[in-house]
C-alpha cells in the first residue's frame, strides 16, 4: 500500500543541521516528481533551542497545507521526541537516537517551563520515568508507533572509519542520518537523494561522506522496515519545479519586475529577502542586465525614506520589513502618500504585538498597515496567499505603485516567507511592466508641474529630468506649500481620486477570489496563508459531504466591496466563517467597514504556528454545529 501524501517532521537544535536535512529531502522529493511544502519553526535564538521542519509531500498535487498527525518524526535529539511525540499517528514511524534513551526531559534546559509542566503531567499519567527510552516504549506499546532506533554515534563512527570524516566534524553528519532514514522509510530512490545531496554539497569532500552516511542509513532502514511509507508514483506531471521560500520568491519577482533600489534594515522574517537580493544584485547574462542597489540602512526610518528618495530619482524602489520596523516607517509612508511616490513596502508579518514572537507567524498587521500614518492618503494594500501569488503580487506591487503613484504595501506572512514550496515555473510571458504616466526629459522644457491638477494622476518626471519640488506640507501643483483652503479641497480630491481610479481599473476578480462550487453550503473567508489550509480543509470536508467554499481576499485597499458583497449575499449569514491568524478577526473588521456585513463566526489562530488543514476542518465543523468562535492552538 502506498501513500498519496506524507506528512513528516524533522527536529533538532537550532544550528544543528536541521535545515540541511530538510533542504536535501525537499530537493530529492521534488526531483522524484513529488510536490513538497515545508514549514520551518524556530525560536528567536541562534543556537541550541528546538527547531523543526514540518513537511508534506504529495504524489497527486502541489501541496499547499500541512496536516497532523504525521507519518514520520525524525529526531536529531531527545528534545524533539519530547516535543513532538503527540503528533505521531498510530502506525507512524519515529526515528531517534538510541544513544539518547537515557535522557530525561527535566534535565534538558532548552525545553521551556510550560512544556515541561505539560510533560510532567503526561508522564505522570502514563506512568513513565521521564526518560526518552520509557517514552519510546510507551509510544510503541500504546500508540502503535514504530520506533526506528539508530545509534547515531555508532553510525557516525562507522562513517569515520569508512569515509574518514574527522571525529570533530562527526556531529555535522547527523543531518545525513535523518536524510537516510526518511529515504529508507519512504523508499525514495538513490537518484533523487544523491541529487539533493549534490545540490547541498557541490564539493566532493562534503558530498561523499554525506552520501555515504545517508546511503548506509537508508539501506539499513529499508532492509529492516521495507519502505513502509512509500508514496505512490507522482501524477503531478510537471517537467520542472521552482522550489523556494516565500522570501526568495519575492526577491526573484522583484528582480523580474525591474527593482533597482532596495533599502532595508535587518529584521526577521523580512531580511532573507534582502539577502537574496544582495546575492543577485548584479546580474549580467547575455541579453539581460540588472543591477540593484541593496542598502542596509541604520534603521527603518532611514530605510523607508531612502527608498522614497530613490523612487523620486526614478528607480523602481522598495523596502522590506516586518512589524517593529514597519512601525518606524509609518511617518515616511505618509510622506510618500502625500507626495504621490511610487514605493513598495514588502511587509512580512510576524507574531505581535511589540517584539512579540519574532520568528513565528501571524496575520495581525492588517489594520495597522491599512491605516498607518496620520491623515488621509491613498495606498494600495495587497496580501499574498501562496508562493505563486507572492510572485505575481511582488511584480504587480511595483506596477501599481508607479501606475497610481502611491505607496503599495505588500503583505506576506511569516508562514509564507519561511515555507518552502514547490510551484510551477512562472510564466514570464504573461507578465507586464507598467511604469505609469511618465513625461521624462520632455518635462524639463517648460515649467514642470509635478502635481498638475488637470488629472488625478499627474505625469511624472524624475529628479534630474526637470526642476520640481516636493514637500510633506500641503502643496500646490508645483509642489510648493500652500495653506489655501480651496486649493486644499482640490488637491485632497486629486489624491484620493486616484484610489477610485485604481478601484475602477483593477478587476475585483484580481482582488478577491472565490474557490468552490457555485452553490455551497457555507463559506470560509480568509486571506494570506490561510488559503492553503482553507482549500485543503474544504477538500477534506467535502469528502465528508460538507460542501463549502472559500473567499480569498487579496487586496484590502481599494477593497473589492462589490464582489465580496455579492458573494456574501449568496450565503446564510450564519454559514459565513471568518478564518484568520489573529485574535481580533481583522479582515472581518475591514469587511464590515467596507460592506456593512458583520461576520459572526470565526476560526482564529494566534499561537504563531500555521493552521493545519485537519484542525481547521474540525473547527469548521464545530462552527457549523453552533460554535461562534474557535481558537486553534495545535503545533509545537
Amino acid at each position, binding site marked *: 500500500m502506498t501513500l498519496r501524501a506524507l506528512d513528516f517532521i524533522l527536529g533538532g537544535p537550532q544550528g544543528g543541521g536541521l535545515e540541511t536535512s530538510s533542504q536535501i529531502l525537499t*530537493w530529492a522529493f521534488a*526531483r*522524484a*516528481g513529488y510536490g513538497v511544502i515545508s514549514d520551518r519553526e524556530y525560536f528567536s535564538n541562534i543556537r541550541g533551542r528546538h527547531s523543526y521542519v514540518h513537511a508534506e509531500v504529495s504524489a497527486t498535487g502541489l501541496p499547499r497545507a500541512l496536516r497532523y498527525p504525521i507519518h514520520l518524526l525524525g529526531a536529531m535529539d531527545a528534545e524533539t521526541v519530547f516535543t513532538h511525540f503527540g503528533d505521531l499517528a498510530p502506525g507512524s514511524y519515529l526515528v531517534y537516537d538510541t544513544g539518547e534513551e537515557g535522557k530525561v526531559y527535566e534535565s534538558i534546559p532548552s525545553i521551556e517551563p510550560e512544556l515541561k509542566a505539560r510533560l510532567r503531567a503526561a508522564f505522570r499519567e502514563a506512568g513513565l520515568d521521564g526518560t526518552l527510552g520509557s517514552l519510546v516504549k510507551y509510544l510503541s506499546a500504546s500508540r502503535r508507533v514504530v520506533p526506528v532506533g539508530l545509534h547515531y554515534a555508532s553510525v557516525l563512527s562507522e562513517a569515520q572509519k569508512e569515509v574518514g570524516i574527522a571525529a570533530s566534524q562527526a556531529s555535522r553528519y547527523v543531518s545525513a542520518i535523518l536524510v537516510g532514514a526518511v529515504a529508507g522509510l519512504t523508499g525514495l530512490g538513490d537518484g*533523487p537523494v544523491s*541529487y539533493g545531496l549534490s545540490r547541498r554539497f557541490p564539493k566532493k569532500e562534503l558530498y561523499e561522506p554525506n552520501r555515504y552516511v545517508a546511503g548506509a542509513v537508508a539501506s539499513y532502514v529499508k532492509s529492516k522496515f521495507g519502505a513502509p511509507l512509500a508514496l505512490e508514483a507522482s501524477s503531478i506531471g510537471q517537467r*520542472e*519545479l*521552482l*522550489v*523556494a521560500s516565500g522570501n*526568495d520568491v519575492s526577491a*526573484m519577482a522583484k528582480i*523580474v*519586475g*525591474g527593482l*533597482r*533600489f532596495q*533599502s532595508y534594515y535587518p529584521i526577521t522574517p523580512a531580511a532573507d529577502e534582502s539577502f537574496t537580493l544582495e546575492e543577485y544584485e*548584479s546580474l549580467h547574462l547575455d541579453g*539581460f*542586465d*540588472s*543591477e*540593484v*542597489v541593496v*542598502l542596509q*540602512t*541604520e534603521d527603518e*526610518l*532611514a*530605510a523607508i*525614506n*531612502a527608498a*522614497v*528618495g*530613490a*523612487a*523620486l*530619482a526614478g528607480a523602481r*524602489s522598495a523596502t522590506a520589513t516586518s512589524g517593529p520596523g514597519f512601525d518606524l516607517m509609518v511617518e*515616511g509612508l505618509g510622506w510618500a502618500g502625500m507626495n504621490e511616490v511610487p514605493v513598495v513596502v514588502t511587509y512580512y508579518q510576524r507574531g505581535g504585538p511589540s517584539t512579540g514572537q519574532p520568528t513565528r507567524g501571524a496575520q495581525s498587521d492588517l489594520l495597522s498597515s491599512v491605516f498607518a500614518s496620520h491623515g488621509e492618503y491613498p495606498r494600495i494594500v495587497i496580501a499574498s496567499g501562496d508562493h505563486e501569488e507572492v510572485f505575481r503580487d511582488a*511584480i504587480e506591487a511595483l506596477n501599481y505603485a508607479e501606475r497610481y503613484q502611491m505607496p503599495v504595501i505588500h503583505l506576506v506572512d511569516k508562514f509564507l516567507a519561511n515555507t518552502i514550496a514547490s510551484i510551477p*515555473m512562472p510564466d514570464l*510571458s504573461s*507578465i507586464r*511592466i*507598467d511604469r505609469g504616466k511618465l513625461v521624462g526629459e520632455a518635462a*524639463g522644457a517648460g515649467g514642470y508641474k509635478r502635481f498638475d491638477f488637470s488629472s488625478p494622476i499627474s505625469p511624472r518626471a*524624475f*529628479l*534630474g529630468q526637470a*526642476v520640481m*519640488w*516636493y*514637500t*510633506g506640507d500641503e502643496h500646490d501643483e508645483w*509642489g*510648493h*506649500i500652500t495653506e489655501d483652503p480651496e486649493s486644499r479641497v482640490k488637491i485632497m480630491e486629486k489624491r484620493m481620486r486616484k484610489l477610485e481610479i485604481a478601484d475602477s481599473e483593477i478587476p475585483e476578480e484580481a482582488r478577491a477570489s472565490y474557490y468552490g462550487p457555485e452553490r455551497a453550503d457555507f463559506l470560509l473567508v480568509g486571506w494570506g496563508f490561510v488559503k492553503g489550509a482553507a482549500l485543503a480543509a474544504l477538500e477534506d470536508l467535502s469528502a465528508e459531504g460538507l460542501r463549502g467554499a472559500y473567499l480569498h481576499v487579496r487586496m484590502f485597499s481599494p477593497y473589492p466591496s462589490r464582489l465580496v458583497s455579492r458573494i456574501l449575499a449568496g450565503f446564510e449569514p450564519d454559514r459565513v466563517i471568518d478564518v484568520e491568524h489573529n485574535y481580533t478577526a481583522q479582515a472581518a473588521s475591514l469587511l464590515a467597514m467596507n460592506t456593512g456585513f458583520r461576520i459572526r463566526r470565526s476560526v482564529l489562530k494566534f499561537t504563531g504556528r500555521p493552521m493545519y488543514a485537519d484542525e481547521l476542518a474540525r473547527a469548521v465543523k464545530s462552527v457549523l454545529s453552533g460554535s461562534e468562535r474557535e481558537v486553534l492552538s495545535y503545533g509545537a
Partner: protein
Amino acid sequence: MARRPSPSDYRSDVWNDWCPGCGNFGIVAAMYQALAELNADPKATVVVSGIGCSGKIPHFLSVSGVHTLHGRAIPFATGIKLANPGLNVIVNGGDGDLLGIGAGHFVALGRRNIDITVIMHDNQVYGLTKGQASPTLPRGIRTKALPMPNLQDPVNPVALAIASGYTFVARGYSSRVKHLKDLIKAAVEHRGAAFIDVLQPCVTYNDVFTYDYYDKRVYALEESGWDPDVRDESDAARKAAEAYAKAFEWGDRIPIGVFYRNAHVPSFEDRIAGRLPGYLKVPPAAEPVDSGGAPLMDADAFRKAFSKYIVEIGEG
C-alpha cells in the same frame, strides 16, 4: 542657460516668509551665489531639507527641492543620491533636525561618506516651533522663549561630524556670505560627505547668539594659518584629532572655515561601483526595467539566474 548664470537665476518666485533679518537669508544668498559660480544645472541639483524654518529653503531656490520630514533629510538624500549619483545633492537642515531627531542619520552619513553636502542652520533654537532649545544651545543659557535656562549640554557639531567620519568639515557664519559661499562651493566640490555648521542668528528667538555676538568673535581659520587638509592618508587620524580639539574653541574667538578635509576616503558611490560594475555609467534611476512593457528577463535568463531554485524532474 547659455550665459553664465547669476545668483538671482537660482531664486524661485515663492515669497520668502522668514522673519525679517533672519540669518537664513544669508545662507540662501550664499547658496544662490555658490550655485551660480558652480554653474549648477538646476535640474541636476537637488536641495533636500528637513522641517523647520530652515526646511523651507528649497522653495526659495529654483533648483529641484525635496522638503522632507523632520530629521529625515539625510535618508531621503541618501536614496536620491544612490539612485542617481549624477545628481548634486545638498541637504539643508536645522540644528534640531540634524543633531536632535536626526542625529542617528547624521552619524550614519559620516560613516558612509556619500558625496552629499550637509548645510546646518545652527541657530541654537527650534525656530519653527517657537524657540525651544536645540541641541546646540549651551547649558544654562536662557534664550527668549525658554521658561528656564537650558538643562542640556550642547553637542559640538564640528566635533560630532569629525567623530562620525565626515571627510569635509567646516563652519560658516550666515552674515559672512562670501566666505560661506566659498565653503559651500568647496563642500560641493569635495567628493564625499561634507558638513558645514553655519552659525545662523535667529532674530526672533535667540537673543544670546546674535549678529552682534558673532560679529565680535568670528575669525577665519584659513587666515590664522590652519591647514585642514589630510595630505597623507596615514596622517588622517592625527589631523582629525587636532580638528576635533579645535572644534571646541569657542568664547572670545570663534573659528570659521574648513576644519578638516580628507580626500583619500573613497565615496560610498565608488564603493558601490566596486560591486556593481555598471553603477556609475547607468545608475539605478536610469537603468531600463522593461522592454515595451515586457520584463527584460525572459524564461531563459530566469532559468540561468535562478537555477539554484529550479528542480528538473528526473531520475538522478
